[in-house]
């Protein structure tokens, strides 16, 4: 018999967290399982920090950039904490919680977590209707871009190389030079 792991709902996961029985940082709920986020190495931190800076500088009050600070319920059994989330500046932030409908782009920076970010996470983000999703792979200095979510996958996708400049589809004027993200600027 395969061992059947007990799956938590987002509601229960949040109640357990509120009771102080889960670590405050470093975990997320994915498909009902409490997952340890992989330790973030130097390159991970550098890439996330550069992305954050580049995106914030060009926001013009159109969106907010959440860096490691947003727990986003995606459905009944998943609540990831993306490395970066671009949230449209169209809501009253003080009162309401960010929902999937507010999100324009999610970015995960991957070093050891690439398979998870390109597999389970794609299914989760696409399934929730997140319009665009980037996986920044700091091991190979490439970016996996996904857009046009369908049931549990994205219909659109391409891989950008370290020298490319990319932009969120919703904000095409925002330019993200990957060389800078990967720290390869000369």
């Amino acid at each position, binding site marked *: *018999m395969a061992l059947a792991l007990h799956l938590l709902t987002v509601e229960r996961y949040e*109640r357990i967290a509120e009771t102080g029985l889960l670590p405050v940082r470093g975990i997320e709920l994915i498909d009902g399982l409490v997952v340890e986020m992989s330790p973030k190495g130097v390159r991970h931190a550098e890439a996330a920090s550069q992305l954050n800076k580049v995106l914030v500088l060009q926001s013009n009050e159109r969106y907010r950039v959440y860096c490691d600070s947003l727990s986003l319920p995606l459905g009944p059994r998943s609540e990831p904490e993306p490395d970066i989330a671009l949230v449209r500046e169209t809501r009253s932030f003080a009162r309401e919680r960010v929902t999937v409908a507010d999100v324009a782009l999610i970015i995960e920076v991957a070093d050891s977590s690439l*398979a998870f970010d390109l597999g389970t996470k794609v299914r989760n983000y696409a399934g929730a209707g997140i319009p665009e999703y980037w996986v920044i792979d700091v091991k190979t200095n490439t970016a996996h871009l996904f857009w046009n979510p369908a049931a549990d996958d994205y219909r659109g996708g391409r891989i950008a190389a370290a020298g490319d400049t990319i932009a969120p589809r919703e904000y095409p004027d925002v330019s993200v030079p990957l060389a800078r993200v990967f720290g390869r600027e000369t």
Partner: protein
Amino acid sequence: MLEELGLEVELYRFTVERYEAMAQAGLLPERGVELVDGLLVDMSAEGDRHAETRRRLLETLSDQRRGRYHVYPGLSVRLGSRDMVDPDGTLVRWAEAGVSIAVAASDVALVVEIADTSLDYDLGIKREKYATAAIPEYWIVDLRADRVHIFARPDGSAYGIARVATRDETIAPLEFPDIAVVLSDVFSARG
């Protein structure tokens, strides 16, 4: 076994303390969940024959207890810092006050699991866990083959004594050898 789940990520593992606190706060189902290697595990649903065999076995053990032990049908047993399981039956040495929430492995004389679909799990990871926690004796009642796997004398992560009793035998816990568990009375007819 838990390494074979095929996940690309590490799962968060709860300690027994956090697990108990969650249970007390009503954040876990009342029944049907165990903590194994720090992970929440769903126990398989109990079928009719499982329930009937369990009732018969626990009744015969209970009838012969003569103040020497308690028989618990659903007791959480703490096996270590990240393991807390609910055996199908637990013989706990008699204590004035009974037990509070979870009993320690050192109070247990015998643990019984009734295996239907869970035989591999009970013979594998569960056996290793019970042996490691020094549970002195462990019976697995195999409903598919109508026999009982008997393990006793824990030594490290294994048991020094291992044998299989068939349904025509009468068995007894090592610690209470006068007790007669007539297996032909325990195995109910197949539905």
